[in-house]
């Protein structure tokens, strides 16, 4: 099915949830409200003519200062049977940075959602094991947010693990450099 027809199907089924559709280079993005996202995903997964059985990717995007609501959770869905894909974008506001988890639909969403929580601070409700994944458990902040600095500006408040590494490096240093 053509991506535009899929977008139309979603529009017919969930007119109140869909905000807009965009097309760029043949790929269609469907921007949706987040409240019933799990229901929409279940529909996309179960309907025989859509049959999106494969979650290619799930990630977050931060549009700080560009747009309201601030965050988006982006799902790339693919159907192995029909060979079509669609991009669903769920808008997540900063005040209520949470969205329903889709782990019960695609098991592979598990780590993607944990990563999204780790790097963007978006909470996935109903996820079986919502912990940080790439960063240490006691890390503060969410690095992929646009207001998180590229280089540390924390000074004394720096993560203790980093300070420990610096101290070890100092202790083991044999020669003074420059």
């Amino acid at each position: 099915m053509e991506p535009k027809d899929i977008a139309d199907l979603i529009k017919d089924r969930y007119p109140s949830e869909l905000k807009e559709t965009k097309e760029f280079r043949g790929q269609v993005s469907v921007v949706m409200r987040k409240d019933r996202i799990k229901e929409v995903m279940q529909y996309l997964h179960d309907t025989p003519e859509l049959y999106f059985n494969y979650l290619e990717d799930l990630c977050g995007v931060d549009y700080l200062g560009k747009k309201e609501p601030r965050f988006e959770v982006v799902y790339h869905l693919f159907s192995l049977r029909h060979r079509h894909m669609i991009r669903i974008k769920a808008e997540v506001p900063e005040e209520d940075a949470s969205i329903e988890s889709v782990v019960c639909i695609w098991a592979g969403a598990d780590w993607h959602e944990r990563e999204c929580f780790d790097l963007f601070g978006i909470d996935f409700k109903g996820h079986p094991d919502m912990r940080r994944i790439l960063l240490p458990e006691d890390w503060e902040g969410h690095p992929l947010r646009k207001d998180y600095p590229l280089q540390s500006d924390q000074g004394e408040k720096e993560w203790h693990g980093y300070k420990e590494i610096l101290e070890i490096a100092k202790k083991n240093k044999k020669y003074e450099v420059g």
Partner: protein
Amino acid sequence: MPAIEKQMNTKDLTISMGPQHPATHGVLRVVLDLDGERVLKCTPYVGYLHRGVEKLAENKTYLSALPLTDRLDYISSMSNNVGYCVAVERLFGIEAPERAKYIRTIMCEMTRISSHIIGVSTHALDIGAMTLFLYSFRDREVLMDLFEMVCGARLTVSYPRIGGVRNDVNQEFIDRLYAFTEEFPKTIEREYETLLNENRIWKQRTEGIGVISAEEAISWGLTGPTLRGSGVPYDVRKFAPYDAYDKVEFNVPVGKNGDVYDRYLCRMEELKQSNFIIRQCLEQMPKGAILAPDAPKFTLPAKDKVLNDMESLIHQFVLITKGPISAPEGEIYVATEVPKGELGYYLISDGSGRPYRMRLRAPSFVHISALPVFCRDALVADVIANIGTIDIVLGECDR
């Protein structure tokens, strides 16, 4: 239960395998809950190699973000580069010339061969078959030399460019690669397959181990040979061809049982198919440009032009300092088939010279997340076989 066992005081044991364990292929830590030798629960921990590639890419221009992609899957950096270039090209709406497409396809398949032979041989090494490891490094060396010949680097190549490749391949490269493709299928049959295919120990260690059904594999989002071992013929090169893959013939091998042995067979067959693709590319490769000539605002001009032509000098200056400033606004997801599976680039452009967001869908990350499924009812020794069979590189997983 024998009397002696009844008196024995037993308890479940939790051990941490890794992060520095020779069989975890990098810094992967797996916490195993054990009842004797049986695995009750397996929990992988990743992130030891996290360098924030996605964050870094947001602060670099499209051109200078390319070397970051080398460092993901560092034993198949050529495919990562090609994936990135294809994604950016599609975002910009430019097309690489035919010759460049063929060269990139050749490079991708060479990488696939070198990655698969490392993958299979370290996998075999982990579960006790050492000989293959030595043979495979001998063959890989030929490919590494060829990479070095064409771009000067062996591992982190950064050879493809947005809109083409950095420099052309010469006749000596073509001859040497052709000679390799003549010899390689025989090597596979004579040395690799005779060592393992019917090896009784190898088969006992791999058959019926780490079984995953097709439905489960799809639900977990597995890709590449790890998915195809379960009998799902999903290959991005066939489903959404990029570069010259729509002009060459090849088969997509699939397994039946979805166990470690079938995935091994898939990889072996893919080696032959890659070899076949390289031969076709070498024979069909047309002459011509290697960098898109009609896109001066996106691709770096040739060096001799920069030195002699004012306009090219300006383009070069702007591209290096500010990036492609006429990049269109939009977003694109492009998947490419790297040796490990599907590598997806999701790029969002806001019209500036830097990607607003670059998301990497790394196959190793997804595969490790499914490790607990592979390790259901496994023994400790099977965990090693399972880590080998999903063919992971932690640089790509942690990004």
